């Protein structure tokens, strides 16, 4: 029998490409407003990253002795952080693209050879896990190129450095996943990986923050200049691809002709692809077969439900079971509860930042300044809460997705469904909000008036932010994804965050006048002026938060009622 002609790599990739194009067409037909908003946000984010990088690099460049090594050190730290994120992201993406994707049965049962399957899936894994880092890199490297005179060819040099830099963690991540899947069932591996990835990501963020990189820009804290210069010029590790990429880029910016980093990057990347392919040839078939087995059978997460059951006893049976069901599902889905680790890291970093404020450098700080920080802290705490609501409350409706047939065909009142979801998300959020606000206010030694204002405002904001998250989650549901963490990353999640920030801004503006009145009185040593102006401002805040609570929930409910499944 003659050998079958093999499909080209393009043929294998084509369905994914066509699917993406069709999705884009669908999005476009949904109206230009969405694309415009996305473009606006993208330009805004890019502009902000570029602006910060440009200013920092300009400032660094002006310090002539250490300018270039300092810029190189920052780039090295940045690329090292990115490489750890890329490795984690590739580990998880490879699991899906090589073992769990729905189209794999078709591909694996086709006569396409293993090398084609490996190369196309490797490319797909790299694309899915590296696009965000690649997008982030654009404004950063634009700033480097502009400040250090990279010239017209600089984008090509950066691309030549980043391509193998992206390939290496992708091959390594894919290989680790391949070995893990052969050792454990794929679904258990997914759980394990989500846990490791989230924990490691949290660790990286925490380490980065506790290292306080801002101190590098303030050399007065270091014992002497020689130590400082030595620290700047020592590579993080000469064996890391991030270091080779940094050297390659900085060599170009300093007009140094040294082919070694280029050769190291490209030969290592190509050698790794060959080694990865050999490993794939040996282990993939057995791993793929194993990935089809072994769904989880053991049960966990019942403890929480049992603990909360007595508290919910007064609720009608349908609502009670609905809440308990949500709690069980949350604690049994590793991709859901593992995010709590990130949440803890976020909170530690937040409290750490408050503690690192120069307010606590030993001198006596005026009440005015403390009160101002407490007031502005409201906005920051509100933003942290919005991010948490985006992750945990926003996906609530989308997660019902394919099971909605059951809820819609049962006599359960949809209003009860929405309110159950609202309170299940709001109560933990509320406890967290009070904890964050009270602890940071205590750290800041806030006066009683500011403590009361911030606690009550945070309470109202939590009700509103949770409602906004649930409402926008219902207005922009994503029933196509099983991973809860992906749900808020779409257009709806972005619109929710924008609305939430707008609400925070409005509340701060409304409260600014009475808070300023209080601060003025404090400065002049007069009693707090509780008058009609102050009461009207606070009443307006209550009204705005009440509207931001009721309106999104109503809109969300109306949307759920009109949904077609």
């Amino acid at each position, binding site marked *: 029998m003659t050998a079958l002609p093999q499909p080209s790599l393009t043929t294998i990739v084509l369905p994914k490409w066509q699917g993406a194009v069709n999705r884009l067409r669908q999005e476009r037909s949904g109206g230009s407003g969405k694309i415009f908003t996305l473009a606006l946000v993208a330009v805004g984010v890019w502009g902000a990253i570029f602006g910060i990088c440009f200013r920092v690099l300009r400032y660094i460049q002006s310090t002539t002795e250490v300018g270039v090594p300092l810029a190189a050190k920052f780039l090295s730290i940045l690329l090292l952080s990115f490489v750890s994120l890329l490795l984690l992201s590739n580990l998880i993406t490879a699991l899906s693209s090589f073992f769990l994707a729905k189209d794999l049965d078709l591909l694996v049962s086709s006569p396409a050879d293993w090398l084609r399957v490996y190369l196309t899936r490797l490319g797909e894994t790299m694309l899915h896990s590296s696009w965000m880092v690649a997008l982030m890199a654009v404004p950063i490297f634009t700033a480097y190129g502009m400040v250090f005179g990279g010239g017209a060819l600089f984008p090509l040099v950066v691309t030549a450095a980043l391509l193998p830099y992206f390939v290496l963690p992708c091959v390594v991540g894919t290989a680790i996943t391949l070995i893990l899947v052969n050792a454990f069932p794929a679904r258990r591996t997914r759980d394990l990986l989500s846990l490791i990835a989230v924990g490691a990501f949290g660790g990286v963020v925490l380490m980065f923050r506790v290292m306080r990189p801002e101190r590098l820009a303030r050399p007065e804290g270091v014992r002497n200049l020689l130590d400082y210069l030595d620290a700047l010029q020592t590579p993080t590790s000469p064996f890391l691809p991030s270091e080779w990429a940094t050297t390659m880029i900085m060599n170009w910016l300093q007009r140094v002709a040294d082919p070694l980093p280029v050769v190291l990057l490209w030969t290592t990347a190509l050698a790794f692809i060959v080694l990865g392919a050999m490993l794939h040839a040996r282990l993939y078939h057995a791993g793929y077969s194993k990935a089809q087995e072994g769904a989880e059978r053991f049960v966990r997460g019942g403890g929480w439900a049992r603990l909360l059951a007595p508290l919910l006893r007064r609720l009608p049976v349908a609502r009670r079971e609905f809440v308990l*069901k949500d709690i069980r599902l949350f604690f049994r*889905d590793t991709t859901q509860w593992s995010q709590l680790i990130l949440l803890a890291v976020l909170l530690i970093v937040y409290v750490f930042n408050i503690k690192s404020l120069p307010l606590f450098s030993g001198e006596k700080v005026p009440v005015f300044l403390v009160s101002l920080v407490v007031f502005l802290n409201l906005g920051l705490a509100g933003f942290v809460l919005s991010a948490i609501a985006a992750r945990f409350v926003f996906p609530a409706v989308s997660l019902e997705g*394919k099971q909605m047939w059951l809820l819609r065909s*049962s*006599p359960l009142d949809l209003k009860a469904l929405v309110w159950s979801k609202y309170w299940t998300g709001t109560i933990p959020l509320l406890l967290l909000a009070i904890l964050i606000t009270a602890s940071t206010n205590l750290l800041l030694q806030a006066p009683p008036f500011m403590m009361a204002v911030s606690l009550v405002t945070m309470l109202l904001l939590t009700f509103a932010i949770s409602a906004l998250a649930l409402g926008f989650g219902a207005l922009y549901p994503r029933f196509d994804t099983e991973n809860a963490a992906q749900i808020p990353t779409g257009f709806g999640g972005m619109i929710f965050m924008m609305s939430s920030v707008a609400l925070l801004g409005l509340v701060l503006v409304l409260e600014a006048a009475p808070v300023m009145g209080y601060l003025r009185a404090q400065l002049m040593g007069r009693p707090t002026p509780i008058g009609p102006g102050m009461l009207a401002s606070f009443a307006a805040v209550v009204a705005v938060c009440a509207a931001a609570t009721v309106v999104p929930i109503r809109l969300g409910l109306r949307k759920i009622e009109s949904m077609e499944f």
Partner: protein
Amino acid sequence: MIRLTDLTKRYGKFTAVDSINLEIRRGELFGFLGPNGAGKTTTMRMIAGILQPTSGRIEIAGDDMAREPVRAKSRLGFIPDRPYVYDKLTGAEFLRFVAALFGQEGAAVEHRMDELLDLFELSTWKDELVESYSHGMRQKLIISSALLHRPEVIVVDEPMVGLDPKGQKFLKELFRAFVERGGTVLMSTHTLDMVEEMCDRIGIINGGRILTAGTMAEVRAQTAHGDTGLEDLFLKLTGGITDREMDEILK
């Protein structure tokens, strides 16, 4: 028991269900037939209260689905064609949850649940997560959940998909026993032998319209097809492949 009056469903310019009028009586097993995309599933999902009709009326034992959805739905048990259930719940937790949706709890539910799980041979899987169930087991779990609250009407879309022969036989007997006790079943299926064997009346739908409805004898009479089998009748009404076309494909 189920009455559809001028029931219509449009998606933009496309009419999926076009002014259907149909009445299914108490104690009747009604077979709903039609080619893929004919409008069967859309009709059944409207009856179950999942989809909203563009126009027309649905009544379940006299309760209007639009005006009295809670009362109408509490009489219904719906079994969809694709068994999507919460993967991270155990079989028992899922059934308890469904019972709660219908306002039921306590010892009676536990007893009924054990009875149904026993009947569908799922007792040993009761405390396992649904994600470890096979397609057929999920289907059995959904059928159990639809029977849990003792419905008066069962609306079932392609019930035999994924079931083993034993399960299929059992389900046929179950539906027959259910209608003999005064229940009503509306069943869509592509298994024509089963329809001929089980159903009291049938309706054939194509292009969103009911082409014919009645007992087998009435349908034969309406379409002037004498003593032909249901398969021939179905193909004649909905259009089938000719021998010449078949030869072309297999050439």
